[in-house]
Structure formats: structure tokens, C-alpha cells
């Protein structure tokens, strides 16, 4: 019995699962092979790659002090682009959830000097787990941020995170260690910040009860602790 090889996968693609076509009763053997290893007597089944959404780490907030995703607190700021003469944004995401953001702004100052600012952000999941590494490089400072993801300790959902940042002159540094907790109706986020001249602590508590008829599914699971 002849068989036909169906191979639409590009080179260096995800592993391909193949099943030999027997002449007798089917006794399928499944193995993972590279494209070049496929025999003409095998039927190729291509497993589609799992696409991971390009989500930001939980502890990276849109607004530094309040992150209430439910409420539209930024409607007066978002989308307006007149503060800078030119803004260019590039966003690239991979199927593994890694994301690259580049933002360039150019502004013509009063003295006709062109002021350009750069901002680069890169974040990706570690080992396909809930952990994320987030890197931000600006023309003034750099920050490396580790997010441990929402994990359960004794049934309570917690998110540990830490970040280390330094200025361009490599002198002013800061270190943050944070713990966020996720409960049914309220969440908290507390972080200790260490700089070269100050130790400070910031705490935020969000109380966001589900009303009668609301479903907990209305809260996006990843950003649940943002009261979203």
C-alpha cells in the first residue's frame, strides 16, 4: 500500500508527529521527527503550535499608583498624541508570548532643538510557566523586573516580584521587592523600595466586590488582582 507524504511545514518549524501506514491492522506508532526525517511511507500530522498571548506581567501596572482596570481612568489621556510632534511605536510578539516594544518620540523644542527619547521594553515568560522577565531600557535609565506569577500558598493566591533599576550614569540605583495578594473581593500590593538614599514602602489595597449577578469570569484571570 502506497502512502502519500503531506508536508506543509516550513524548515526549522515545530516538531512533526508522524504515523506509519501499515498494511495490516493499524498499529500506529507516533514519533516526533524533523522535516528532513520524514519517510515517503509515512503520513504526516502537523501539530499546530500553541500560541501564547502577549500578556504583560501582573506586577507591571499601566498607572504607577492605581491600576483599576475596570474603570476608564485614562480616557482623557489615551490616544491623544499632540504632546510630542512625532511618536513611533513598534510592537512585535512571538507565539511563545515574548513581546518587544519600541517607542521613539521626537519633539521640536522652543529653541528649535530636536529632542529625541527612546524606550525599549522586552518581556517573555520563563520556562512556559507563570514567571515573566521584563526589561525596560530608556535613554535615562534601565530596569530588570522579575514577576513570579500568581501562585497559591495555603490556598491564597500571591504574586511575588522584584526589580532592579539603575540610571544611565550607573550611580543611582533602586531595588524593589513586592508581594501582591489576591482574595475574593479585595487585593493588595505592597512593595519595599530601596534607593541609594532612601528606604520606602508602598502599599495599595483594592476592594472590588462582585455584585449580585456578576460573574467572577468577568474578571480577566491574568489581571484578576488588579480588580479588573
Amino acid at each position, binding site marked *: 500500500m502506497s502512502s502519500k507524504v503531506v508536508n506543509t511545514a516550513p524548515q526549522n518549524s515545530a516538531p512533526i508527529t508522524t504515523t506509519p501506514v501499515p498494511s495490516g491492522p493499524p498499529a500506529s506508532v507516533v514519533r516526533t521527527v524533523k522535516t528532513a526525517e520524514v519517510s515517503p511511507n509515512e503520513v504526516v500530522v502537523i501539530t499546530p503550535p500553541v500560541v501564547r498571548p502577549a500578556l504583560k506581567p501582573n506586577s507591571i501596572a499601566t498607572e504607577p499608583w492605581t491600576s483599576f482596570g*475596570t474603570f476608564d481612568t485614562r480616557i482623557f489621556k489615551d490616544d491623544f498624541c499632540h504632546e510630542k510632534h512625532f*511618536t513611533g511605536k513598534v510592537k512585535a510578539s512571538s507565539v511563545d508570548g515574548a513581546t518587544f516594544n519600541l517607542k521613539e518620540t521626537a519633539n521640536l523644542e522652543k529653541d528649535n532643538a530636536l529632542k529625541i527619547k527612546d524606550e525599549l521594553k522586552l518581556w517573555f515568560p520563563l520556562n512556559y510557566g507563570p514567571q515573566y522577565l521584563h526589561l525596560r531600557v530608556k535613554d535615562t535609565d534601565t530596569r530588570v523586573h522579575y514577576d513570579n506569577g500568581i501562585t497559591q500558598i495555603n490556598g491564597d493566591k500571591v504574586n511575588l516580584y522584584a526589580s532592579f533599576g539603575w540610571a544611565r550614569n550607573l550611580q543611582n540605583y533602586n531595588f524593589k521587592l513586592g508581594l501582591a495578594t489576591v482574595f475574593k473581593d479585595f487585593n493588595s500590593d505592597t512593595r519595599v523600595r530601596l534607593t541609594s538614599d532612601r528606604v*520606602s514602602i*508602598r502599599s495599595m489595597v483594592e476592594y472590588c466586590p462582585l455584585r449580585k449577578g456578576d460573574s467572577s469570569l468577568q474578571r480577566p484571570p491574568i489581571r484578576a488582582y488588579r480588580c479588573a
Partner: protein
Amino acid sequence: MLDITKQLLLKKDLLVGYKHKEWDVIVKAEQAFDKPTKDFSNFAEWFSSLSLTTTYTHNSKQKYAASVEADPAKASWLATALVEYKYNDKSLTKVAVNSAAVLSVMVKKTINNLWAVSGGAQLPLAGDKTAKNKFGVQIDLNI
């Protein structure tokens, strides 16, 4: 936010929001880092910005918003009204005008899955001498 080194309350923020059907009401009190409270008996030093924002989502295309922002230390306030209109999934316009007679306009056009272009302008109408004309262009590339 507490400065443990100097034992000083650096900053406190408070947000209370209520959502009912198409209405969102947000009361926000924020304190700037450079304005810590030195005299707690003076309420004007508690927060550097107080705001009340209301948004009404009429349908998937139209959204309306109004905001009043006050600075307790300067005893000044600014009211802003905003209209957001989505022509379709690819085109968006926002128009805002505030009590200082400053008009802000933006238009966003999503060309395809990769490209989007926005244009914005701020135009002081009669009255405000401090505001200036501002123009900007934004290009988004999503790979």
C-alpha cells in the same frame, strides 16, 4: 507610600469607582511626590489633585465623558468634556474641550493588521493665554 528613612508619609492616593450599566463614576484623590503633607490640620495639603470623572458608554461607537479636576492648594479647578466616536473597528475620533477653552482633537486610523496612524492637535480657543497650539503624529506598527 512611607519614607521609612525619614519616617514621612510621602504620598497617598484614593480612588473610589462605581459602575452601573453604561455609567462609570470615579472619584480620585492623588498626592504628588514633591508635595508631601506637612500640616495635617490643613486639608489643602492632604492631596494635590482631586478629580471626579464620569463616563457614559452610549453604544459600541459612542462614549461620552466629563471630568472636574481641582487643586486644593491653588483653589483652582478645570472641567473637561469629551466625546469619543468610533466610525468602525478601524477609525476612532476623540474631541475634548475644557473650561480654559482649550480644544483637543485626535483621529486614529488603523490601516491593516500591521499599521495604524494617529494625528492630534491642541488648539487654545479664546481666553487662555498660557496654552499653545500643539500638533503631533503617531505611527503604530504591530508585527
